[in-house]
């Protein structure tokens, strides 16, 4: 898998050229405003660059027709700092929702949802509502929802930003496990402890430019 930003010149990102291989675990780090979150938006095709091209899963995203975008997004999973769960649905229903709205049958949801909740360590809490779960557990639900379609790439925008250090470590273990199944993980963070512990590829950004691209890197 290759992604190339040949000169996406939004003010927040400029002249970036990065390629990430299938199955990699990559951190995007850098100070606020460095353009890290823009990268997630570009990869999701929520935004398009003014110049340049982006390939995700061998598909060119920038020139993609808008009616092809939904199908493209099914090959991605995404988690955010604020979890983005539906408060009126239980953990299992939140995960099932992601299946139902892309046309999967109830039978599929009944089979797959408990599996994936078990995988993220929420066995037995399927019927809790988000407000009955801790922050870490809510993020697990969000990860389960992102992973339930077995995406090729998982995008994570500061997934530990709202969590305490211990919980963050647990979430990272979970992401690492998912990475070992072959899923590429692109994670935006400014949590130095996590980056230092994981020792994965680190791409540091500043002012919209890549200032460091290091495999098995640390934060600082």
């Amino acid at each position, binding site marked *: 898998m290759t992604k190339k930003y040949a000169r996406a010149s939004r003010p927040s990102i400029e002249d970036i050229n990065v390629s990430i291989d299938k199955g990699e675990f990559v951190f995007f780090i850098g100070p606020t405003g460095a353009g890290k979150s823009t990268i997630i938006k570009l990869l999701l095709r929520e935004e398009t660059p003014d110049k340049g091209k982006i390939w995700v899963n061998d598909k060119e995203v920038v020139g993609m027709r808008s009616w092809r975008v939904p199908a493209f997004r099914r090959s991605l999973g995404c988690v955010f700092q604020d979890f983005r769960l539906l408060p009126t649905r239980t953990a299992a229903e939140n995960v099932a929702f992601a299946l139902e*709205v892309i046309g999967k049958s109830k039978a599929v949801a009944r089979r797959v949802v408990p599996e994936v909740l078990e995988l993220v360590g929420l066995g037995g809490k399927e019927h809790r509502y988000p407000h009955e779960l801790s922050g870490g557990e809510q993020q697990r639900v969000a990860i389960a929802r992102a992973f339930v379609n077995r995406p090729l790439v998982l995008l994570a925008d500061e997934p530990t930003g709202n969590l305490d250090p211990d919980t963050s470590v647990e979430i990272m273990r979970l992401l690492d496990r998912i990475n070992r199944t072959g899923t590429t993980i692109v994670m935006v963070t400014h949590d130095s402890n996590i980056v230092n512990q994981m020792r994965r590829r680190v791409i540091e950004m500043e002012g919209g430019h890549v200032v460091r691209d290091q495999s098995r890197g640390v934060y600082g």
Partner: protein
Amino acid sequence: MRAKYVLSEVLVGLWRNVTMTIAMIVTMAVSLAMLGASLLLYFQVSDMEEYYYTKLEVSIFFDKDAAQPAIDAIRVEIENDPLIAGFEFETQEKAYERFREMFKEAPDLVNAAQPESLPASFRVKPVDPDNSQVLIEKYKGKEGVANVVDQRKVLEKIFEIFGGMQKLALVIAIVQGLAALLLVANTIQVAAFSKRREVAIMKLVGASNWFVQAPFVLEAVFAGVIGAIMAYLTLIGVKIFIIDGTFKSLFQSTVLTPIPWSNVHLMFPILAGIAGVVSAVTGWITLRFQIKV
């Protein structure tokens, strides 16, 4: 599963905003009823035109004491007139009979009239109804002739009234229709806002655009069709209670052709179709602004 999901979303959506939904449906029903009335009047006028223009006559009325030779002279002239396709002579007695029949519900009027007080007349059928003015000019001043009346003139007055009513109904339909469309747009905006979390997640996980938009659009279509049903019932009510009720005698007289049930029933598919399509398009356009891909 999908159909059930979409249907339950539609009903929940309409119920969530029930006062707005009622306002939307009532406004739509008024608009559609007016549109239906306008269409019925339009059909009515063209029915009547067709009915009457094929048997339009010019009546040549004689003075009550017109002499037989004068009448005979005109008869000869009519027989040889190339502009006249056919004619019929109505004696004073025949005119009296017709008068009695026409006003049988007003016996005082009938009793007051005598055969001698009614004029004899020729009922003349022009070859071309558009040429009737020439005939009027030609026979107006002749000896013994009191007046020449073109039925068309009388009918045109009625058509004018009908046309005016039709236009008025159409204007109300358009104004109410615009109000209904704004309410549809507003309802959909509210619905999209109250479901913004769901919509955001749907788009994130790759739900197809129609799947995201269908419940909203169907909400509008559903309301439109209910509005059409209410408008249709209103038209049926007007037909039963007003046209066949209060104004029964007017519509059964020779002046107005009756409004047939088939025309009233025809309004339902027309109104439902228009309401459905217009609501769907409005809803869809609103969503284009509301939900970006």
